[in-house]
């Protein structure tokens, strides 16, 4: 292959959903784009794979909650095969006694179940829900585009919208909002509700995927942030064919406008000189040249490992290497020869997002275990039975169960080789407390520990969000102070992954905003 052939306008590192979104937008802007990925399939952690023959499952992420309609339309995803299996997955807080709480408690019967746990909660739920929605909408304008580089720029539209919404809240809610933001979520839940199960489920919602427990300061904000992000989406759901189908649609869309996607092509080095990026080199030595390199790999790996700290001024390099990446989770995927039996389950519950978090103490304990590099005795988890809405994932009558277990340490005490079996057993035992016939129905299964997630999806330390999503690492501070604008100090190098604003989750927003920023910068020059 001649050198000529490897010259592009834009190189995108990583064919995860954000990388593909960036590639799609850049190619639509008329750029000659190549996407390079180390894996043998597109999608990064948004990928569908077989557990065993005929049993397919989203092997990494399993739900989409914040993919905007706009991205779907801009990139013509339905034309490229994206069909939603469902967009209204409810959360179900599992109760051993069968009194499962459904969130959002939309129906009258849901409120009655809440009231069965606690009369007060039944009455206060709607008020809480409305309040959270209001609060989230205050935050949401900041997630609608590139955040200002330093501080909150109050000349911008997002700030104006926020100020107006804050004003509209009225004195009481405004005061509550200001108390809410810095608090730990446990204290908010304690003063809002009585029922352990409801509090446990909401606490899990706020902390899942982050290195925090309900008592960690800032978790109330994490919850709001998540809800604000969801306001940009179209409801919680997944496409037919699992999350890999989304990635394939994104890849198809990018390829239809000329982008080239090269798999099995691990990038070993980003090449830069004199403060300017010029290309990348693959592990096999192949050189790709482009004036713009967009990395959907986490910012720390991009800057320190792929490029080298020397290409940044010391203060910048220090900020980047200081990015905290502690949060990690494990994934357990099971092939089942039938639906596991949960007491009092209807259609809606089976198709829902099942949460095991009986109370806040259990959630907190799992975080404490993770802090000590230990495995929780009673793990909390989020489960989905994707084959319920998308039967083609498994043979007729059979199912797949996808389990995300948060607060699983990367460096587990004793090493993963020794602790794997124990971990799987604890997970299955815990689920069996709610679905006693589960173990009888397991045909096959796979477990992805954090090191395996790192290895399989190319995510450093198995971190789903490419950097903890805490207040000090969000908005203007994501990925690092002074670098919120997607452009890096190295000219032509952009971040476009979850490590940038607005962060992790299958939203495509970092990818979209990065492309917008790169194109705007080029236009300005």
């Amino acid at each position, binding site marked *: 292959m001649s050198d000529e052939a490897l010259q592009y306008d834009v190189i995108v590192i990583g064919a995860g959903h954000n990388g593909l979104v960036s590639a799609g937008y850049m190619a639509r802007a008329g750029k000659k784009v190549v996407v390079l990925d180390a894996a043998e399939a597109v999608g990064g952690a948004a990928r569908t794979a077989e557990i065993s023959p005929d049993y397919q499952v989203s092997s990494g992420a399993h739900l989409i909650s914040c993919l905007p309609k706009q991205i779907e339309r801009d990139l013509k995803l339905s034309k490229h095969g994206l069909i939603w299996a469902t967009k209204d997955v409810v959360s179900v807080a599992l109760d051993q006694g069968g009194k499962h709480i459904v969130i959002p408690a939309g129906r009258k019967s849901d409120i009655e179940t809440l009231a069965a746990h606690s009369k007060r909660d039944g009455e206060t739920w709607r008020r809480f829900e409305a309040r959270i929605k209001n609060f989230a909408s205050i935050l949401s304008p900041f997630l609608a585009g590139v955040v200002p580089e330093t501080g909150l720029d109050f000349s911008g539209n997002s700030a104006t919208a926020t100020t107006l919404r804050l004003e509209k809240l009225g004195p009481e809610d405004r005061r509550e909002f200001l108390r809410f933001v810095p608090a730990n979520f446990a204290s908010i839940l304690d003063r809002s509700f009585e029922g352990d199960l409801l509090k446990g489920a909401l606490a899990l919602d706020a902390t899942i995927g982050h290195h925090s427990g309900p008592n960690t300061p800032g978790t109330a904000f994490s919850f709001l942030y998540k809800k604000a992000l969801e306001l940009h989406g179209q409801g919680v759901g997944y496409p037919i064919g699992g999350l890999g189908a989304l990635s394939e649609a994104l890849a198809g869309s990018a390829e239809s406008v000329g982008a080239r996607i090269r798999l099995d092509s691990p990038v070993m080095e980003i090449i830069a000189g*004199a403060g300017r990026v010029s290309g990348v080199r693959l592990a096999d030595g192949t050189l790709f040249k482009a004036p713009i390199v967009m990395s959907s790999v986490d910012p720390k790996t991009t800057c320190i490992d792929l490029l080298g700290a*020397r290409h940044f*001024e010391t*203060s910048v*390099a*220090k900020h980047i290497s200081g990015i905290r990446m502690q949060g990690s989770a494990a994934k357990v995927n099971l092939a089942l020869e039938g639906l596991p039996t949960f007491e009092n389950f209807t259609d809606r519950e089976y198709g829902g997002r099942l949460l095991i978090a009986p109370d806040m103490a259990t959630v907190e304990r799992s975080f404490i275990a993770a802090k000590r590099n230990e495995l929780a005795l009673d793990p909390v988890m989020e489960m989905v039975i994707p084959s319920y809405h998308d039967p083609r994932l498994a043979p007729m009558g059979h199912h797949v169960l996808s389990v995300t277990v948060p607060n699983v340490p990367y460096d587990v005490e004793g090493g993963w080789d020794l602790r794997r079996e124990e971990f799987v057993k604890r997970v299955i035992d815990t689920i069996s407390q709610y679905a006693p016939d589960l173990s009888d129905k397991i045909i096959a299964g796979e477990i992805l520990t954090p090191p395996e997630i790192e290895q399989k999806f190319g995510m450093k330390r198995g971190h789903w969000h490419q950097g903890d999503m805490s207040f000090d690492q969000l908005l203007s501070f994501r990925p690092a102070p002074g670098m919120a604008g997607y452009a890096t100090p190295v000219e032509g190098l952009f971040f476009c992954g979850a490590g940038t604003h607005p962060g992790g989750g299958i939203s495509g927003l970092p990818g979209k905003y990065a492309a917008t920023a790169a194109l705007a910068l080029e236009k300005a020059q």
Partner: protein
Amino acid sequence: MTEIDPGKKKTIAASQSAPSPLDGPGIALDPTWFEQTNDELPFTRHVLTTPLHLVASEESRTNKWTEWNGYTVAEVYTNFDQEYDALRTRAGLADISPLVKYRISGNEADAYLDRLLTRAVSTIPIDVVARAVLCCGNGNLVTEGLLFRMGAQDFRLTVSSRHLNWMFDAAEGFDVNVEDVSGTIAALSIAGPMATKILETAGGDDVSALAKNHAKWVELGGMPVYVSRTGMMGGCEYELWSDPSDASVLWKRLFEFGAPYGIKAIGAAVRNVARLEKGIALEGVDYGNVFEAADGLNPLSPFDLGLGDVVDLGNHVFNGRRALKDTFKRGSAKVLTGFEIDADQQAQFANIYVNERVIGTITSSVWSPGLQRHVALAIIEADALGASGGFSADVTSRWEKSGVSRAPISLAKRPFLAFP
């Protein structure tokens, strides 16, 4: 020429082979008072003595000492006027061992320094000394000093205050070894019209051939000494870098060979006057470094301090480049300026006025015996430089009880005192 091993632990007392300063009559000093022993925990001692402390105290007739970077150094040895006279007409010798010195070595020492300093070091030949400016990400000064290239990948950086933390932070991602060698290298400064002559008679063959800002290894009485044609006191001057155990012998030797030429030990008081006559601003006196400045406005960029020619805004990435590009375009808001004061009065920290508007502050001011008037360094608003005159400052009278009065001052070019 063997090189000094900077890692070697040395005791500070005069070495055994040297003629002991205790041999002289009437001196009752116990050298062990000044010894730092190996079993001492680091940072337990707050009053440090230089390797020259014993021989230097032998020269002292006043017992006036002062502090410099934690070390005790002589403020005045004999008498200010005598010392100044010796420095400008014959030769003066000063102990400058408290200078902060870093050794930077390793495969990527040059690449590391390229990023650390505001200029590329690849163009600096071996045995040449270059002005070194260190900036922070915001383009303000961390510190400045001199960079000695002692080998292809072996550098010595001397600066006025400690910044090891910053140097270590900057080392991430480089194959480089950064160490503080302040305590393991003794330094002397010799200046004055007779300095060259004394060095040559003391054994430093053809140091006169040494061009300004050049350095070389010389053997003085069998001791390896790195001699550089650098200094802060003005005139013909050299700095001598040696092993601490050789330092007192070296000092004695220079006195022995310098005696016929009237050499004298120079204290900190005269050194300060001399550096101001030369117009040199000091970190911590005339400006604050970016980490210590009380507010974000105080620290200055290299352009503000007139160090623009040490900043290479070309293509290489260095700390502060992005910010300095903007600073350069915007121009300096404040600048370091020299003034002469038309009054025999002290003016440190005095406000400077143009038409009753405060435009800056005097940061250092001394009576220059060489010029027979007060000279001062000041930080003033850059746009005030356009004023053709009419500068005045609040000066403090030494004699009148009334205290502060207004005296006219005038802009002056640096160095204030010209040397042949």
